[in-house]
């Protein structure tokens, strides 16, 4: 957990120092009406994966923005998911040889929340913190192969062990999601910005919640 929040602490420290050096009253900057950016991230849950999406926000008060973060993480499968798939593959191997399996749980999500930015005197960098709630759509994708051929759709046959996949290995569900994160937005030129960011997400999944860390970069425009 210490490692999990490390990027955020760095961001907060940076923001705190900047705030202490600021003597001018906080006010929206001319180009702070809003922003839109595309993000690409490394994603860490029980597995390491990738995440990408779009984030946009607009200012409602000086330094305060409402934002929407819509994205897709390729795999957030907990260890229990992979273990369950392995268990079923073991059953399949009792009636077939050369059995293989894959277990992935991609998540598509949308989060809405608030983002607080601070100005740093003498710097063009704008640190920020953000938090929000949303919804994650989890899709459980367990596939089973025999001699390289996908037999997932035929698992209920005698030759494949009359297997019934439960919702632990198939189907999809929508679960609430909490997000907390931070970063530093750096203007490049004109309205173009780069956003170095880290996110902690908690997806309230069954039978156990999923902790997801995303760290990456966003490139967008501010207006």
């Amino acid at each position, binding site marked *: 957990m210490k490692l999990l929040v490390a990027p955020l602490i760095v961001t907060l420290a940076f923001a705190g120092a900047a705030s202490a050096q600021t003597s001018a009253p906080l006010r929206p900057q001319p180009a702070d009406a809003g922003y839109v950016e595309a993000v690409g991230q490394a994603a860490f849950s029980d597995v390491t994966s990738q995440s990408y999406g779009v984030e946009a926000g607009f200012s409602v008060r000086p330094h305060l923005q409402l934002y929407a973060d819509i994205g897709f993480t390729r795999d957030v499968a907990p260890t229990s998911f992979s273990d369950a798939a392995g*268990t079923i593959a073991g*059953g399949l191997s*009792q009636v077939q040889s050369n059995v293989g399996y894959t277990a992935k749980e991609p998540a598509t999500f949308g989060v809405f929340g608030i983002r607080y930015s601070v100005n740093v005197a003498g710097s063009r960098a704008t640190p920020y913190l953000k938090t929000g709630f949303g919804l994650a759509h989890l899709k459980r994708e367990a596939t089973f192969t025999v001699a390289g051929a996908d037999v997932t759709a035929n698992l209920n046959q005698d030759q494949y*062990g009359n297997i019934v*996949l*439960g919702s632990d*290995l198939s189907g999809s569900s929508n679960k609430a999601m909490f997000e907390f994160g931070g970063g530093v937005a750096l203007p490049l030129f004109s309205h173009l910005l780069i956003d170095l960011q*880290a996110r902690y997400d908690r997806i309230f999944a069954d039978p*156990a919640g999923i902790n997801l*860390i995303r760290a990456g970069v966003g490139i967008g425009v501010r207006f």
Partner: protein
Amino acid sequence: MVVAGCTSSTAPSASSNSVTASVVAPRPAAPATGAQIKNGDQPVSLVVQNAISTGTGTTYTFEVSGDASFGAKVQTKDGVAEGSGGQTTVKLDSLAAARDYYWHARATSGGTVGAFGPTYKFTIGPAITLSTPVPISPLTNAQTGPRPTLRVSNVTRTGSAGAISYKFEIATSAAFSTVAVTGIVTEGVNETGFTPSSDLTNGTLYFWRASALDITNGISSLPSSTQSFTPVNPLWPGALPPGTSGHARLGPGWAPQTLVSFDGHVFDSPPIDEQRVFDLLDRGFDPQGALNWMNSNGYPTVGVYYPGPQVIGFPYTYMALVNGAWELVIRVGG
């Protein structure tokens, strides 16, 4: 792309667990498909290799049907708890004889009703009944030789019985806790007999009974009523002389036959006294010693020994030692 050095872990959710388990169907283990089961071996036990499940609390449903499509189910055993040792067993109620049956099983686990596993078939054999054998002889308290032939009347049977055999048991207790001799013989005409292959102990009270067997179909009758007998030595029903055989040799004249004496008396030859004397000679007695032992041990005899010609005289015969062998000679005069 920036990659941060982070770790994370899953943690139990506060929400209720609505996830259902995945289930690999149980696989039939016994009886093997195509098994022929004797009607008398019922009740049949069905055994499956336990299902594999990602959930807990697995229970099993067994279905037995008269047709392969399970349109005519005859028994369903539901909610059977998972057995230990990797297998689960359920005992069926009695099934009708002489029919084919199909069975399969499924598991329910973690909120998921699994699929039925492969269908296996077994056949219950025909219903066969055998009546109880009736003893003919020896009946209770009989005295017999050391190898009596035990005889029973053949049983009657219903159904398509196979070849019938009879199991004879001879024991030293009426409870047959100690069986001395057992023999299985094929059925004879109208009656069936069994003779022990070795001598029973003289003077011992034995009990015997017989059961009819249809080995092909694994059917057996109830045992017959118990009878008893006591083997006796025809030569020495009382005191048994000492010694071992091998000291004398039989000559001519000992063949069993019915004769008429010189005075018209019909008798069976060899007479019992002559047999006893020879047995004593064979045990190492000298001729006079043999006669003396008989007279003093409850086997009185009128035999007289004549040492000169080595002859032992009796009322209608005499024994003569000729060339080292004891001949039995019919007397031609008084």
